[in-house]
């Protein structure tokens, strides 16, 4: 049976539009060195390295983990490269956790990254061709359907955009630091993909994230509290087919129920103290609250409207500022899981949610068709006993 595993170290870069001071190597190492320091370990303590990133064409290096492997201390060790589109950062953590849970390794380093400034993600998303619509163009119709289905008022998206940017002010690593953000500014920002405004969209960032995942024995020796991984799950479904519900993809529903069941969660809204959800466009916050059955149909936007998802609310979402504040694509999913883990470790600093014991991290990718989710806890016990 699976052995327990825990996140014992987390490091991330200062995310920025361009980290022109660093090579791709330097970017990954900045996060990895910080994760090792947090875990009180050195490169020599690591048994295996798992690397994740979104499409190679974003930086123009085919399988860049081949040249990054020894830069991440992997010489003489196993190295895996994961690629599951936008969810890849989450999948990378999960693949690494499996290496512990299977009993193969004691300490695994997982690194996820993107250096968007080297290339152009919109070009990449368009397959290098003209006429690309960007991720926002792909998701805007789904958002439009959500609004139509739930009769949500238009300001809900603006509220999420403001909340996440205010949260980012408490996170020194966040790319965007928009102290003067306001509903008015979001509403008045250019319409990019109707109904999405510029300020309802994620930035394009350079950044990396890294975590050290350890066995129970190794975690108990860690200098700081571990985040026990109570549950992980991934789900994939085809990009598009007749009858697909792209607003509430079945893969997202199934993935959520899988982690809830593993973790012993019967009432996610009550039993989860904080969630880091992959929200690259504002409306995805209420969409995932409903799509993961944290809120009932049409109730997700009401949670936003009532302030429940604020850092001081009853169900804080993205206290780190989320993808709306930093989007190094390949790393964004890992940041969600690792930020959620840091909350139950009590290590989240100024954006710590008081008393967080159980957290949810989620990443999605592709055409809202790839999901990677994890539940973390400050103890090894299942939620609800």
């Amino acid at each position, binding site marked *: 049976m699976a052995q327990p595993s825990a996140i014992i170290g987390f490091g991330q870069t200062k995310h920025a539009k361009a980290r022109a001071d660093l090579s791709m190597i330097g970017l990954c190492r900045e996060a990895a060195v910080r994760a090792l320091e947090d875990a009180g370990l050195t490169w020599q303590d690591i048994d295996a390295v798992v690397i994740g990133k979104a499409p190679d064409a974003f930086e123009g290096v085919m399988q860049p983990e081949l040249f990054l492997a*020894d830069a991440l201390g992997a010489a003489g060790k196993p190295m895996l490269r994961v690629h599951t589109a936008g969810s890849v950062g989450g999948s990378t953590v999960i693949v690494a956790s499996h290496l512990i849970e299977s009993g193969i390794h004691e300490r695994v380093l997982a690194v996820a990254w993107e250096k968007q400034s080297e290339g152009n993600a919109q070009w990449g998303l368009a397959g290098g061709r003209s006429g690309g619509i960007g991720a926002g163009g792909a998701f805007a119709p789904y958002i439009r359907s959500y609004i139509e289905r739930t009769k949500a008022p238009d300001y809900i998206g603006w509220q999420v955009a403001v909340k996440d940017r205010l949260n980012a002010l408490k996170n020194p690593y966040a790319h965007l630091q928009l102290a003067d953000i306001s509903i008015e500014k979001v509403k008045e920002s250019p319409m990019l993909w109707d109904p999405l405004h510029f300020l309802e969209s994620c930035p394009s960032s350079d950044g990396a994230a890294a975590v050290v995942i350890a066995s129970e024995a190794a975690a108990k020796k860690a200098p700081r509290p571990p985040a026990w991984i109570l549950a992980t799950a991934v789900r994939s479904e085809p990009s598009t087919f007749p009858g697909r519900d792209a607003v509430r993809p079945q893969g997202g529903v199934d993935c959520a129920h899988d982690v809830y069941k593993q973790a012993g969660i019967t009432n996610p809204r009550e039993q989860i103290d904080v969630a880091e959800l992959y929200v690259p466009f504002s409306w995805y916050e209420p969409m995932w609250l409903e799509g993961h059955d944290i809120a009932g149909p049409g109730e997700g936007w009401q949670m936003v409207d009532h302030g429940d998802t604020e850092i001081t609310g009853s169900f804080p979402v993205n206290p780190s500022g989320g993808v709306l504040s930093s989007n190094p694509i390949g790393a964004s999913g890992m940041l969600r899981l690792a930020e959620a883990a840091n909350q139950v470790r009590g290590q989240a600093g100024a954006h710590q949610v008081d008393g967080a014991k159980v957290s949810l991290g989620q990443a999605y990718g592709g055409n809202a068709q790839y999901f990677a989710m994890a539940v973390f806890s400050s103890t090894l016990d299942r939620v609800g006993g």
Partner: protein
Amino acid sequence: MTDNRHTVTSTLEFPYRRSLGTVVGGFVTGLKDHRILGIRNKNGDVLVPPSEYDPTTGDSLEGEFVEVGPGGEVTSWTWVPEPSSRHPLSQPFAFALIKLDGASTSLVHVVDVGDIAAMRTGMRVEPRWREEPQGLITDIEAFVPEGAAQ
């Protein structure tokens, strides 16, 4: 469609702009001054090309650059009789591993000697510099037999 196939051609093209950081950046900056830099690790080995880390341990290298070469010895080589559009020289040339004087590792580069018969393992070479440096590894246009650079 000569053979009844429906063939489509597409090009994946993008002008990438890379930031090099201090170590690769220091190396290519050195090339502009006709200096080849390595970096020293904890064991005293001089790594060429230099890296921000020790490849065998992952440890950070704090940037003690060491000038090496410019001469060195070919430790392995092959001959490219028909260069592709991606190769740095249009005439036949050698790819070679070159251990520069003072270096502990070998650098991959090209050797321009005109004929395969002039190549051998152990031969001494030195850089021929590009007239207009671009901040790239190819600012060394090619290595040539020692004494032939002028």
